[in-house]
């Protein structure tokens, strides 16, 4: 047990946790925005998966991870447009639309992967983002240097976004409009707020965050793509939103917790603790269910998942 704690409380471990939390943090922070506007975005799973694929494919074919990122953002944006059109403009059932889109994305990415890159058993790698290079004297700072300065760019974006999104929500008119539209769109409408516009923009913003999450998943480390690479990350992000109580800071806590669990389970797999490796793999997911059970869903936006039709009498 003593050994076990010693593993957890190393700077390297915490740094890894932050690394693992990054995709989830990005996706969840994006989700907070669209969920608070009243649209339920379960399609986030498909967005992460597709952008993971397109980031990889873009980088593989062009040699540039930046172009890979661009392809990922576009792919995610496109899914968001379809989801928004179906759920906001047409008012279709948001769960069913998401299930359809997610299934589609899973099939599409696996198929394209085989078409373009063959069924070779060799692992194909693309160019990826490497760690941000800091001046040497900074990285040599004990503990903090290890935790914060051996990260790729997306981790920093995620950390900055925590503050940015909190600021947007509570200090700007945009945030007020998003919150209002998610609570009582008709009231917002009578006050001259364009409900559809707010909801679309919230969704598109969220999809860009999911696009970065997918990119962080595929080309910031192993730089490869595998079938169903997102493996439920989107759904975990979604759960994070719910037990993070739709608040940017709550969500951050949830995402970090998941990152720690992930880091821990990988440690457990490689250490010689004598348990089947499947058990640690379950850990983050089990933890998510337990957290949902303990914290509960709290207050959800009153018009969450309810489409708005302006001409209804």
């Amino acid at each position, binding site marked *: 047990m003593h050994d076990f704690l010693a593993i957890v409380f190393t700077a390297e471990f915490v740094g890894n946790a932050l690394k693992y939390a990054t995709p989830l943090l990005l996706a969840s922070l994006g989700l907070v925005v669209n969920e608070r506007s009243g649209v339920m975005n379960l399609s986030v799973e498909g967005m992460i998966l597709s952008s993971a694929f397109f980031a990889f494919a873009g980088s593989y074919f062009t040699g540039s991870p930046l172009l890979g990122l661009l392809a990922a953002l576009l792919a995610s944006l496109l899914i968001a447009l379809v989801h928004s059109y179906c759920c906001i403009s047409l008012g279709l059932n948001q769960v069913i639309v998401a299930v359809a889109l997610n299934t589609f994305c899973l099939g599409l990415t696996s198929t394209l992967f085989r078409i373009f890159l063959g069924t070779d058993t060799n692992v194909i790698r693309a160019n990826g983002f490497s760690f941000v290079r800091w001046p040497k004297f900074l990285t040599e700072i004990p503990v903090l240097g290890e935790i914060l300065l051996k990260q790729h760019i997306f981790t920093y974006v995620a950390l900055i976004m925590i503050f940015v999104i909190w600021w947007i929500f509570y200090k700007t008119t945009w945030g007020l409009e998003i*919150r209002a539209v998610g*609570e009582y769109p008709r009231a*917002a409408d009578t006050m001259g707020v364009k409900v559809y516009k707010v909801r679309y923009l919230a969704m598109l913003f969220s999809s860009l965050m999911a696009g970065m999450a997918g990119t962080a998943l595929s080309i910031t480390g192993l730089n490869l793509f595998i079938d169903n690479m997102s493996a439920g990350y989107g759904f975990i992000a979604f759960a994070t939103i719910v037990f993070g109580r739709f608040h940017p800071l709550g969500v951050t806590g949830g995402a970090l917790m998941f990152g720690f669990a992930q880091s821990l389970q990988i440690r457990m797999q490689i250490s010689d603790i004598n348990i089947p490796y499947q058990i640690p793999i379950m850990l983050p997911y089990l933890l998510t269910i337990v957290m949902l059970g303990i914290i509960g869903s709290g*207050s959800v936006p*009153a018009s969450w998942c309810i489409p708005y039709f302006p001409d209804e009498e």
Partner: protein
Amino acid sequence: MSIVLKMEGITKIFPKVIANDHISITLHKGEVHALLGENGAGKSTLMNCLYGLYRPDEGKIFIKDREVVIQNSDDAIKNGIGMVHQHFMLIPELTVTENIILGLRQSRAPLLDIDEAGRKIKELSERYHFNINPHEKIKNLSVGMQQRVEILKVLYREAEILVLDEATAVLTPQEVRELFGVIRKLVQEGRSVLIITHKLEEVMGLSDVVTVLRDGKVVGNVITKKTDPKELARMMVGRDVLFDFHERHAEVGKPIMSVNDISVTDKKGVRKLRNLSFSLHKGEILGIAGVDGNGQVELSEVITGMLPFTGGNITIKGESFGALNPRIVYEQGVSHIPQDRQHTGLVLGMSLMKNLILTDYYHAPYSKNNIIDYDLVDDHAADMIKQYNIKAPTTETIASELSGGNQQKIILARELCREPDILIAVQPTRGLDIGATEFLRQKLIDQRDNGSAVLLISTELEEILQVADRIAVIHEGQFMGIVRKNEVDINELGLMMAGNMRSPSDSICEGE
């Protein structure tokens, strides 16, 4: 007085109905103009055209002699029109300030300036003695306070023309009086007010001019001082409305239900009913008066088995119950017209004929061996439609598609056709127009005359005075006294509603 608003020849056609048929109205500066009409007369449609929520098919709108086109609520606000909606357009989770500045461009946009806005709101609030804390969340405010926030919202936008849609529907008598005071002050300051209403007292008490609508057309335009409620009612309904129920001293029979020492405490530990006792007799209407929110809802839920109580017991037809549930109550021959017809009274998504058997679907004649005889149910529904004059195309019509008055008639038909010995009616005429109100009150009286007992819980004192034989006044979950109608005057009732206990010696707590 100069003209601030003119609507000319406004026509709005919906797929099935002409809601507005060439309606013209003129509003002068500093005037209170009442738009009077029954539900469905086209008042709200007209105002929605003015506020940009609908686009009229024909007609013109002029603001101070300049023609304007109002496409959406933004345009309306820019033209100085502010609307206080019947169903408040407030977001419960946001603060007063956030609600008021929503949708506005502040000087430092897109940054929010809550402090600056809060200061301005505080000033406005003080000017009208609103006593509102700008940083309180809406969900913590009473209904009356929420309406003040709605008014502040409009004033903050410096509206010249205020439209109030059925503004008093949810207010207590005191709040109504305060609202009238505010409206008078607004008019003195040079603003103009349009009130949409179907209540004659409101028109008479507040307006300078009245335009009466019926079936989408203007049927009259008169100066309030030169008319009287009778004439207005005639214009509005198209026939004489009497509200003149023949006075019959009901022969009060034996007690049929008695409530003994009942208390209710809510989840937060607040006592909603305190040791309440009364008995209800055959052949009488016992009216329960009081300001909204003093335990009326809890009382009605307790005696219909929807809310558990502590303390004593409830006796129905000689049988004493320490706990009730709705089915026991119904099987004892009690019927219930609930306060909220859309939540508790009806399954809105279900057809009229199914709604009509909700209380009795599980036994003969409607079902045998758990199989419902839909032919019979259909015949029953057709019969009820005829008897209660429900305006519905077929027995399969979905309840939500009917007007409020017709929805209430479904409930009335369902609850009365089972010939109850006891009828509990809670706010039965809330939101109904004059014709439907008259019909419903007459039904209550018929019940009494047939020897049933009626418990009428209403916040409209006028309604209770019209039909009740005895009146109990409830205040903070306690009775302030139970009196015979002919032995009390309005002032005394008002004092009791405000919480003054009537001295026990002159209180007739029970019928003989």
